[in-house]
């Protein structure tokens, strides 16, 4: 990578971090305005972790994200429009309004849809990785979970199975200090969650989750390890949940000084300072990026608001998939519409979670 390419990459990372924050800020506003009917989870402070980790991936890789991973979705090309349709429960949302939040996925673009039961996605990540291994691919799976989810049985079963099978998975723990109101001290009795790796026979690393370049380095190493057929790694990113568990939670159980301390380490501000010091982020450049972020968010909200609600008559439709051939995702020709999993057979249209962010703006 030459100097100019590196500068572009760094600005792209910055852009995604800003976009993630701006999307969530707008989501919060929509929630406060009563336009989002269900619970809203945001992840201020996680942007270095989610964006940094996802930036290490390539085509053919897969993410298995959780509820605070908007940054991963955006980096992997999930359309902000789709995200907003999902929040606003529109009939053209990826789940057709049947589910909310970031419970979206598209296997052809390597996004496994999460469920609310945290930790349960990790065994599923193993299955995706198992297929990559069977098909002799050099692709990898990036699967995340919170500090709370590390206490589930599913976490243990997944890490053990992945290690035994030497699966190409990177397990990413976003340790933000709390699981709802439960602090780390009531969640586990070890110093750092990365220590768990040793018990499974895989490498483990704990990294400053508010330093995007440090996250990229650590996750990048783990990804390279997995690509090389050397099996899974556990990477703990230490960050903090500076807001409530959900937007309905005041989080008055968090000591104010602790929150202040972490707010001062805001990952976006930190990266901004770094870029400025490197001479990469001029005031003008920054204004440009802000304008672009704003346009994308505005477009996503406008698109979602103009989208139709789901048709109540469809409520019990599509419980079962139709008959027909199924493609192995990632093989040549897998997008051929004769395959039941090539298009979303509920609508006959492509899985609608993906698009280039730029595309969304130009289509406006």
């Amino acid at each position: 990578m030459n100097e100019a390419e590196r500068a572009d990459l760094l600005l792209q990372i910055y852009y995604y971090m800003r976009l993630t924050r701006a999307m969530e800020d707008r989501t919060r506003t929509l929630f406060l305005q009563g336009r989002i009917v269900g619970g809203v989870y945001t992840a201020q402070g996680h942007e270095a972790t989610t964006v940094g980790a996802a930036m290490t991936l390539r085509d053919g890789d897969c993410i298995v994200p959780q509820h605070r991973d908007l940054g991963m979705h955006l980096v992997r090309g999930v359309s902000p429009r789709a995200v907003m349709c999902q929040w606003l429960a529109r009939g053209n949302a990826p789940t057709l309004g049947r589910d909310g939040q970031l419970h979206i996925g598209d296997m052809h673009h390597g996004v496994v849809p999460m469920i609310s039961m945290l930790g349960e996605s990790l065994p599923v990540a193993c299955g995706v990785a198992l297929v990559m291994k069977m098909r002799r691919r050099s692709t990898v799976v990036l699967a995340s979970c919170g500090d709370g989810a590390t206490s589930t049985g599913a976490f243990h079963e997944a890490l053990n199975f992945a290690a035994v099978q030497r699966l190409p998975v990177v397990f990413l723990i976003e340790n933000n200090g709390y699981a709802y109101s439960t602090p780390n001290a009531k969640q586990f009795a070890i110093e750092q969650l990365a220590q768990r790796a040793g018990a499974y026979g895989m490498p483990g690393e704990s990294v400053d989750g508010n330093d995007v370049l440090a996250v990229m380095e650590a996750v990048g190493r783990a990804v390279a390890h997995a690509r090389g057929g050397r099996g899974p790694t556990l990477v703990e990113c230490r960050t903090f949940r500076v807001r409530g568990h959900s937007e309905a939670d005041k989080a008055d159980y968090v000591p104010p000084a602790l929150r202040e301390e972490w707010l001062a380490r805001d990952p976006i501000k930190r990266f901004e300072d770094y870029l400025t010091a490197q001479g990469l982020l001029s005031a003008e450049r920054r204004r440009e990026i802000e304008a672009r972020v704003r346009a994308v968010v505005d477009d996503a909200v406008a698109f979602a608001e103009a989208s139709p609600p789901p048709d109540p008559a469809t409520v019990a439709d599509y419980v079962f998939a139709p008959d027909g051939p199924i493609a192995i995702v990632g093989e040549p020709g897998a997008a051929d519409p004769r395959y039941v999993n090539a298009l979303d057979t509920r609508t006959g249209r492509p899985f609608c979670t993906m698009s280039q962010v730029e595309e969304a703006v130009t289509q406006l």
Partner: protein
Amino acid sequence: MTAVTYLEAISQAIREEMRRDESVFLLGEDVATYGGAFKVSAGFLEEFGPERVIDTPMSETAIIGSAVGAALMGMRPIAEMQYIDFITCGFDQIVNMACKMYWRSGIPLPLVIRGPAGGGTHGGPFHSASPEAWFFHTPGIKVVMPATTYDAKGLLKAAIRDNNPVLYLEHKLLYRLPELREELPSEDYIVPLGKAIIRRHGRHMTMLTYGAMVHQCLKAAEQLASEDGLAVEVVDLRSLTPLDRQTIKESVMRTNKVLIVHEDTLTGGVGAELAALLAEELFDYLDGPIMRVAAPDAPYPYAPPLEMAYLPGVERIVAVARQLAAY
């Protein structure tokens, strides 16, 4: 051609599907080197290799969860539960992860979960489960239970080819039962999911049943014919989801009396739903109460006298059928 057992039919179905379709693979505890606790997959490792016959850790959530992940990728995994009782350890992967996947995301999940179910083998409270009602109640999964060797093979092949999660319950009492040995067609066949079959025709009453209880009902029907002159129709549901409402209703419209028999416990069992369906839709056709024979509402017991008292058998079926016939 040689007559094969119910267990061999299951084995044949998996083997033939694995030969036919490279996306089919088997994973579970002790399925590879050992060939499975009941030897369903004996010889598979040699034929298909360790990547398609996977010995897993003792880890039902990992087994079912990995099967879900592989199915998301377009593979057709078969996840074996060593005994179906252990399916509870992977329950969330089924009811929350798998069952809701297509409905909410549009991504099909061609996945089979199978394992030995049912009692009569002195397995006690943790090796005798009939777990069908939990899954029968859950939208998004198909549930089948073969009673014959022919069906064991045909239903499993259909389950493997289906694009949805299918719970395939094999009754372990039937695995090596000599009377169930059958010569199977040499050509490929399936038994479609969602189609019941009438095992014995009769005009005085319909017995609705499935799994090993089909054979108890057939024996009871024989006895009722010779001792009471009753012509009992025995309907083997084969699939619980999808349920063959048409065959059920047509039979009851002919016989006007229904006795539902299942090995699972009574309350909230499959029979309760069948009774509700018939009461709602065929009220005018019924010449007697809809009656049920099922296990009592208690966990499955171990000691032989307790097990005998617990399991529905010919004697109880005959007694209740006589009460019903008297209406």
